[in-house]
């Protein structure tokens, strides 16, 4: 594997790791582990932890995939490996 390819793969892994960290933090962190402290804060009629668990996390998931597509598109072009 050429050096460029290795670097491309490393950057790909870095993007993945960051996005998955956010993924885990929002769902397991905000939606489950931290749900009780967050529930003391209210967002309209929603306790915040409850909102993250039943609504917010899903919105974040959609955003994460969108960001992933954008970043990877850029990376593919930068390393000239796009289709």
């Amino acid at each position, binding site marked *: 594997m050429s050096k460029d390819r290795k670097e491309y793969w490393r950057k790909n892994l870095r993007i993945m790791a960051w996005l998955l960290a956010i993924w885990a933090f929002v769902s397991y962190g905000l*939606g*489950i582990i931290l749900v*009780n402290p967050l529930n003391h804060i209210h967002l309209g*009629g*929603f306790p915040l932890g*409850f909102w993250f668990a039943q609504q917010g996390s*899903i919105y974040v998931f*959609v955003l994460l995939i969108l960001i992933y597509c954008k970043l990877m598109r850029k990376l593919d072009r930068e390393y000239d490996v*796009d*289709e």
Partner: protein
Amino acid sequence: MGILGWTYVFVGVTFALYIYIAWRSRVSDTKGFYVAGMGVPPVANGMATAADWMSAASFISMAGLISFLGYPGAYYLMGWTGGYVLLALLLAPYLRKFGKYTVPDFVGDRYYSNAARLVAAACTVFVSYTYVCGQMRGVGVVFSRFLEVDINTGVIIGMCIVFIYAALGGMKGITWTQVCQYCVLITAYLIPAIAISMKITGVPIPQIGFGSTIAAGHPDAGKYLLDTLNIIAKDLGFVQYTATFATVNTNMLNVLCITFALMVGTAGLPHVIIRFYTVPGVRQARASAGWALLFIAILYTTAPAVAAFARYNMVNTLNDKPYIERPQWYTNWQKPGLVAWVDKNGDGIIQYRPGAAFVGRPNFKMADGKRVLGKYGQPLLNNKITTNKNELYVDRDIMVLASPEIGGLSAWVVGLVAAGGLAAALSTAAGLLLAVSSSISHDFYYRIINPQATEKQRVLVARIFIGLAIVLAGYFGIYPPAFVAQVVAFAFGLAASSIFPVILLGIFYKKTTREGAICGMVAGILFTGIYIIQTKFMGVGNWFLGITPEGIGTIGMIINLVITLVVSSFTKEPPPEIQELVESVRIPRGSGEATDH
């Protein structure tokens, strides 16, 4: 026109449409049959994936489940959506680059072994099968209530419809039918949700409505809906609606395991994975995962709102009301035995309290082919009555289907919801049955038994196996192992412990060997399968750290990963051409080539 008339109209029109689409997109070659010719645009694939994946459980059962569970319903919501992030980031682009027809195809080629292919094919069949039974049951529930036929007859009608378009159009037919089914099911889900949200809170967006205050003219007007649900729950002795595990005795590790198993399971479901083979390239595979999740999110963020509204409506229309003044919807749903009432204290008033009113599903007393009625005109039951104060039995599955009636919406909305429920169940059933039949006909028959088979033979075998698969699925639909959502939860555990880890390592760890992958898969599925059978059917306690069968897939996955890595470390490393194959799937360029074989 009444509810029954409208239901026949909507169900008839949508069914005709599906069959028309299937006829228009019928195929005669394997590439069309298995991967829709690899020409599906990302948005369409997103819709098809959403319909493929949102099943009878998502449409019919999920809001009902959340409605009864309250906060813990979030595990399902997050689990079934979070998996798409894993799918988009870890699997879809690479599998599309690899570019074959099925999941066992990847496993067999990557692990240079027909044994691995066979194990993966067996896993695929097993997982898809566990899942398909729930769909058939869902079809039966919809038919029995809306078209007033017996549940078992409903299952059989559903089998016939799926057979027609799955056998005719293969993946191509299924894809375009699913695009259409997505539109039907999302419309059917949103219209009543918006109407009920308007009615109860005056806010037209359900996602915002269920965090708003109750509109004038309803009980507890002016208070926040969720606060009101908490108060109602407390008054009746239920756990509060937004209460978390701190107030209930819950095992945190188990909660995390359930959510994780659902996420990884979603990413490992073969019928979802194969959808990403149908797009033209890697970029489109990534994009269609995003579209899919967006389309799914529209329903999944509405479901918890529907759940909250349904609970509010149900308690207000039934609890502490005299049975003789029961609403029409109650009578409608009593016919198929999905609601029932036992007058424990003989006061003629329905008391809804925690616990089961009686043991098992309602078993009505019959005489001369008619139900025996009690003092207040209620059908009497043979079931063993429990000692708690609850007198009401409500099947969770009716919460969505009955919500337009409970909310007092027009008859045509009820008919539309019936069509939507059927769209959800049928689209998923078709996708699953295709995954089952392609594993058998492509991976087992063509790749292992008869590699000389002609195109014509291969397509014929695929069609025959779809037919057989449907008959078996119908059998399990008639004799279901547990209620719809629970059956589906098992499929996730099994997908999480077998398919996901083996693909993940196949892409991200070049030195994973054939021996490692086979041992890992077998260990993962054996552990998970045995645990579920023990705890679910043999009455053994949750012996592993108190983890319930729904969450055990997480442990199965870890066992699979560890065993695969350990075995790989002391077996001969994969041949150079396999390592090159792994290098090549990591690079998007060139996905258009090498798609046929």
